[in-house]
C-alpha cells in the first residue's frame, strides 16, 4: 500500500483525465467558454464584438463577486444564500439614503445590514451549528422583511442612483468597463487571501477536515464568523455595483443572481463539500454562465428551463466531483 499512489505505473486514460480535471479545472473551463462563444457567433454572426464583450464583462462582474462569496463559503463546506438579499438591501438603502445624506454616510448605512446579517449567519453556523443553507435562508427572509418595512418609511423621499455608481456600473473607458477598476483589485484580493494568508488556508483546511483543524488548535467559530461577515460585505459591495448597472432599485434586485452564483462556483471547480477549489475557476464559471444566459436568450429558452439547467448542472457536477475524489 505504501507505494501504490506514487508509482509511475501506467494509469488508465479515464483516470488520467479525471486527475487532470481535478488538478487543472481551469483549462477545460476556458475551452468550454470558447466553445460557447463560438456557438454564439455561429448562431448570430457578428454578435461577438468589442461592445458585446464589454457588456458581457459588465454583467459577469456582479455575478462573479457573489460567486466569490459562494466560493469562500463552499470551501468550508457551507453556502451563503443570503447574498441576494444583502446585495439588494445595500443597493436599496444606498439609493434611498443618498437623496438626503452625504454619500459617505449613505455608504456606511448601506453596509450596516450587510455586516449585521453576516454576523448573525456566522454565529448561527459557527456557534450553533445550524446548517448554513437553512441559516442563510432564514436571515435572508428576515432581511427581506426588514427591507419591506424600511421601504415604507422612505417611500416619500424617492430614490436616486449616485452618479459615481452609475459611472462605475455602466461606464466604459477605452473599451474597458469601469467596473473592472473595482473588480480587478477585489478579485486579486480574494485570490491572494485564499492562497497566501492564514485565513484563506484555514478556510480550505476547515472545509477539508474540521477535526484536523481542531486538533491543530483552530477555533471553528472564529473562522466561520469572520467568513460569513466577509461574504456579506462582499455581497453588499456587489449590491452597490449592481444598482449602478441596473439603475432601478427594487426589492428583488439581486435575487435572480443567487442561483447562478452557486452554479458559477460549482462549475468553477469549487467543491460543495469543502476543501477544494479556488476563485480563478469561479471567475471563468461566472463568464460561462453569462455567455450561456445570452445563448439561452437567443435560443428563446424560457426562464424555467434556465433554472432547470442550473439545477442539473449543480447536481451533475457535484456527483461527478464525488466520483473523481472517490476514484483515488
Amino acid at each position, binding site marked *: 500500500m505504501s507505494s501504490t499512489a506514487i508509482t509511475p505505473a501506467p494509469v488508465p486514460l479515464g483516470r488520467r483525465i479525471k486527475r487532470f480535471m481535478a488538478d487543472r479545472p481551469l483549462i477545460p473551463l476556458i475551452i468550454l467558454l470558447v466553445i460557447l462563444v463560438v456557438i454564439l457567433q455561429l448562431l448570430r454572426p457578428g454578435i461577438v464584438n468589442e461592445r458585446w464583450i464589454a457588456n458581457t464583462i459588465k454583467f459577469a462582474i456582479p455575478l462573479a463577486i457573489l460567486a466569490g462569496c459562494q466560493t469562500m463559503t463552499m470551501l468550508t463546506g457551507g453556502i451563503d444564500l443570503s447574498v441576494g438579499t444583502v446585495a439588494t438591501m445595500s443597493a436599496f438603502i444606498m439609493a434611498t439614503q443618498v437623496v438626503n445624506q452625504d454619500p459617505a454616510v449613505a455608504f456606511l448605512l448601506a453596509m450596516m445590514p450587510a455586516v449585521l446579517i453576516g454576523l448573525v449567519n456566522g454565529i448561527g453556523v459557527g456557534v450553533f451549528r445550524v446548517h448554513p443553507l*437553512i441559516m442563510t435562508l432564514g436571515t435572508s427572509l428576515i432581511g427581506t422583511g426588514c427591507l419591506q418595512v424600511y421601504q415604507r418609511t422612505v417611500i416619500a423621499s424617492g430614490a436616486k442612483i449616485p452618479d459615481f455608481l452609475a459611472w462605475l456600473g455602466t461606464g466604459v473607458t477605452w473599451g474597458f468597463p469601469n467596473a473592472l477598476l473595482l473588480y480587478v483589485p477585489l478579485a486579486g484580493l480574494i485570490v491572494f487571501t485564499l492562497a497566501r494568508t492564514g485565513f484563506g488556508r484555514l478556510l480550505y483546511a476547515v472545509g477539508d477536515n474540521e477535526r484536523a483543524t481542531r486538533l491543530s488548535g483552530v477555533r471553528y467559530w472564529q473562522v466561520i464568523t469572520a467568513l460569513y461577515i466577509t461574504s456579506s460585505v462582499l455581497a453588499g459591495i456587489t449590491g452597490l455595483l449592481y444598482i449602478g448597472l441596473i439603475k432601478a432599485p427594487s426589492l428583488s434586485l439581486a435575487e435572480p443572481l443567487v442561483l447562478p452564483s452557486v452554479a458559477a462556483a460549482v462549475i468553477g471547480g469549487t467543491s460543495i463539500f469543502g476543501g477544494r477549489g479556488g476563485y480563478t475557476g469561479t471567475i471563468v464559471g461566472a463568464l460561462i454562465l453569462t455567455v450561456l444566459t445570452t445563448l439561452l436568450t437567443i435560443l428563446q429558452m424560457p426562464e424555467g*428551463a434556465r433554472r432547470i439547467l442550473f*439545477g442539473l448542472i449543480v447536481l451533475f457536477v457535484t456527483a461527478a466531483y464525488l466520483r473523481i475524489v472517490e476514484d483515488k
Partner: protein
Amino acid sequence: MSHFLRRQGWVTGLFALLIILFIVTKVIQPGYGSGDFGSLARAVLPYAFAVAAQTVVVIAGGIDLSVAAMMALTSVTAASMMAGASEEYALFVVPFVLAMGFVLGALNGVLIVVTRVPDIVVTLAMLFVLQGAALLVLGAPGGAAAEWLKAMISGTVPIPGLPDSVDAWVPKALLVLVVCLCVVWIPLRRSRLGLSIYAIGSSELAAFRSGVPVARTRIIAYALSGLFAAMGGLALTMSTGIGAPIPGPYLLASVAAVVLGGVALGGGKGGLLGPIVAVFVLRLVRTDLTLLAIDPNVTAIIEGLIMVAVVMFGAFITMRGRQ
C-alpha cells in the same frame, strides 16, 4: 420512561401554548369567533402539509429543501390542468398530481441513494429544477380550480346531532387536513415500514444490522414527503383557486415547525402531531400580531426571527445531544 414523558410532554406543552394563544387572541379581539378559526384552518392547510412532508424525511435522518418548490410545481400543474376543464376532470387531476408528487419525491430519494451526493445538495438542486419546471408549466400565477375542490375547504362540517354553534368550530379545512394526514400517517406508523423510517433516522448502522433495507426505506421516505408536498400544492390551489409558480416561504416554515414540534433534526425522534400543532402555534402568532395592528411586514420579520431562533435552538440541542 422519562424520555417518553418528555416527548409527550413537549406536545402537551405545545397544546397548552396553543390554548394560551387562543385565549390571548380572544382577549385582543373579543369578537374572534368560529369564522376566524375557519380562516386560520384554511391558512394552516398548506403549511401543515409542507411540515408533514418535511417531518417524514427529517425523521428518516434527512432534510428536504425542495418541499416548497414541489408544492409550487404540483399547485401550478393542478391549476393549469383544471383551467377550462370540466368539474369531473378534477377527479382525475387530484390523483394524478398526488402521484406526481410521490414519483418526484422518490426521484429525490433515488438520486440521494444512487449518486451518494448528500441529501441537502440533491434536494437543493431539485429545488432549482422543480422551480424551473413550475415556471415552465405556468409563467405567471394563473389557472383555475374545480368548484367542488374549492368548496371542500371552505365552510364547516354539519355534524348531525350537534348544535350549529359547535358545528361552526369544525371547519372543513381542518377535517381535510386531519383525514389526509391520518390516511397516510396512521397505517405508516403502525407498519414495519414506519418503524424502519424511524430506525434509519435514529441509527443507520443499527438499522442496517437489524436487517432494515436502508436505501429502499430512504427512497420511500422521500416519496412520502413528495406525496405530502403534493397535497400541500393541491391545498394551495384549492384555497387560492389558482396556481403560483414562485414558491412561498414554506421551506423555512416547515423546518422551523418540525423543530418546534419536537422532531430532532438528527432524525429518529418525534411524531407528526407535534409539528402540526407547531404550525398552528406559528400561524396563530401571526394572527395575533395582525390583530394587534402591527404592520404585516413587521409581522413577517418577527415570524422570521422566531423561525431562525427555533432552528438555532434545535441545532444547539442536536449538537448537545451528540456530545
